[in-house]
């Protein structure tokens, strides 16, 4: 192996190690608050992809930087470089590496992450919430509790919730940043998305607790949001009881 290659190898290792160190140290603090089990799967997948991306970035960067530093010619080059047309071993190793990496990414975090999400989605839900979207609001119905509201999404902590989403007019999307879960609301179709909130909190303390429209739907798209509140089961029951009382009174 020649001297140039050796230096690049070392430079690559150095950059990769520094990069991985940064990823491992910084990743946990990078994401906004996560408040659902599903959200943790998403964040873990993101972190793992960063870990995989670092050596790729580091390799290209190391080669580029080293080449720029040591192969540049001052002014117009007076002669040509060595006529290297190709190099089979290098190609072979490169193919092996990219194919291996791709396969790895597909399996993990791709397929494994999807499997984990699907396993949760297959669980019997503790609570079903129907969400109907319209320009530019949310009608949130709790069929079991027989209540509905346009004001906020209230959920009990630790319970597996299935959201059944549809739209009354154009496309919208159901998205709660703190849950990392998203699905389009399509007219004429019911789409489902699942979340298992595992941390109490509300919009007042953290704006990531919000139900935000994430599919362009017109003038009101950016303000099509309502607060989300994750509370203890007792509090949830009290809220539900109060809501149904209010509903009965207004009837």
């Amino acid at each position, binding site marked *: 192996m020649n001297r140039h290659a050796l230096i690049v190898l070392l430079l690559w290792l150095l950059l990769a190690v520094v990069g991985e160190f940064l990823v491992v140290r910084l990743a946990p603090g990078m994401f906004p608050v996560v408040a659902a089990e599903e959200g943790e799967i998403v964040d873990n997948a993101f972190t793992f992809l960063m870990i995989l991306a670092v050596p790729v970035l580091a390799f290209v960067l190391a080669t*580029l930087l080293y*080449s720029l530093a040591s192969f540049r010619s001052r002014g117009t080059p007076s002669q040509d470089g060595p006529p290297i*047309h190709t190099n089979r071993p290098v190609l072979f190793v490169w193919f092996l590496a990219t194919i291996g990496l791709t396969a790895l990414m597909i399996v993990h975090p791709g397929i494994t992450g999807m499997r984990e999400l699907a396993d949760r989605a297959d669980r019997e839900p503790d609570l079903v919430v129907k969400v109907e979207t319209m320009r530019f609001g949310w009608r949130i119905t709790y069929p079991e509790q027989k209540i509905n509201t346009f004001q906020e999404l209230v959920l009990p902590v630790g319970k597996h919730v299935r959201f059944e989403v549809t739209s009354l007019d154009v496309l919208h*999307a159901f998205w709660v940043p703190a849950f990392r879960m998203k699905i*389009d609301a399509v007219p004429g179709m019911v789409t489902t998305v699942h979340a298992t909130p595992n941390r109490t909190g509300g919009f007042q303390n953290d704006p990531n607790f919000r139900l935000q429209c994430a599919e362009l739907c017109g003038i009101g798209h950016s303000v099509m949001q309502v607060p989300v509140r994750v509370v203890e089961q007792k509090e949830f029951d009290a809220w539900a009881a109060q809501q149904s009382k209010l509903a009965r009174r207004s009837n």
Partner: protein
Amino acid sequence: MAAASGLKPILKGLSFALVGLLIGAGLGLLFTSLTNRPSTEPVIVLGYVFALLGWLLGVGLWDAWGREWVGLPVQGEAGHDWRRFFRFTTDHKIIGVQYLVTFVVVMLLAGIASVLMRVELMAPGKNILGPNEFNTTMSLHGIMMIAVAVATIIGGFANFLLPLMIGADDVAFPRINALSYWIIPPVAVLLLLTPFFGGFDSGWTAYPPLSVINAHGQLLFLLAFLTFGVSSILGGLNFLTTIIKLRAPGMTWGRLPIFVWSIFAAALISLTATQFVAYGLLMIILDRVVGMSFFRASEGGNPLLYEHIFWFYSHPAVYIMILPAFGIALEVLTHFSRKPLFAYKWVVGAFLGIVGLSFIVWAHHLYTSGMPNSLHIPFMVTTELISIPTGVVFLAALGTIWMGRLWLTTPMLFAIAFVFNFLIGGVTGIFLADVPTDIQLQDNYFVVAHFHYTIMGGEIFAIMAGLYYWFPKVTGRMYHEKLGKVHFWSMFLTYNVTFLAMFWAGIQGMNRRVADYIPDLAGINLFVSIASFFLAASFLILVYNLVRSWARGTVASASPWRARTLEWQTSSPPPLENFPHPPVVVGHPYDYGVPGSVHAAPAPVGGGSEDER
């Protein structure tokens, strides 16, 4: 007076267009009164279609075809002064310049739109644009930039250079070539008119049902995109035929410059996939104008149909943008490293592999659309497979500069920056291709940052490399090297600051296509906005350099870079017939450092020797 006579074809086109507009609008009125559909949309559609026909006939179609058919004498070529740039000429070099200038202007307009957007996003709440104005500005920025990205290289660079590089005297269908350029101005006019018809708030993707029910501006957008598609298809057809049929003697497939290969690959996509977007847009137009039910749920319509059809085009379209950019970047890297292109044959294979794969990945845009979950894994797999051929392109780039004699001119700097930027764009594409992460990242600024890294950091940087590299060939003058370097560094740095920060905004939960956002994101948005203003300002250096150098730069020699490909073997700018003596190709274009190797022998005397590699 000279100006008026120089613009005669355009004035004629405009007046024919006006007549067409009146006829079409009249027919439209007739149609609405017959069908009792109180709507102005049929009037717009028919008015536009006839105006477009009128424009094309007036500007040159009649002179180019009609006169010949009815037996009238066909007029000769335009002269040599500036007027020829305003004519329906069939010289591929003039058409190339027409494309380039048009799209640089469109890009500046779209860039100004992005500056307006960034001003609005500087702080939460309303700053200068209301929500509807913001949406229109955003959508206009998107579609104009997409047009720039799709057509600048194929329409501009390939038109000028591809026939030269393969040793031909023109493209296969010169008149169709002119036609595909002259279709473009109406597209620009339509788009610029949209704000006067209520704008359109659907983004460049125009998802129904929103795009069925919103203001008339949407219809103008649909017609414009459709027209643009026609131009793309014709362009693809022309280049494929040119490459297959018009190569100079000795220019075997194994000796094609890599830029030509990249155009070949991109043209395959634009020839075929574009039909899908045409149909997608047609469906929306039919829903709007004649009340069909493609997207009306109560009649069994389904917006997902549009999403599939649209992305069946628009995903391959991103490779229409990036493949020619690979071509330019590899071309520049090779010549300025003074080394053969590394693994040439593998790169060609990779291009074709990307073309093949590009048709079977579209649904990675639809992970959260509500399509069946069973489709997630297949599309994730195909999408991530694209990194393998793309990786070959990267290996070729790195292998080419390795041990080279790097000549760090402005084009070379842009080509190297291309490798760096596109690396980030590509790798973040993987984050989106992965289903679990995309559930959070879809419709998020992470996506916005991803595609600005691939399109702007990738393709636009490659366009810049090409602009500087071929500037002497096109204009016959050198650009100002120092200014070029100043432009490079200011653009490279401000660009990366702007869009790296956008990834961060995305991770923090900034969703895209919003005029307003939660106050927590104020800091990062202010930062991005300020950086983007510096980025926009860096383009002023480019514009100044181009205008100044074209007018009075030092005169360029035939081959200022001592590059081996054919376009440098003729004068700068090339004569009308391209090569005084048709060239004969005898060797590989990239055999730098191979003693005694020759790419082309200028004068064919009994044919060249065939040394097969």
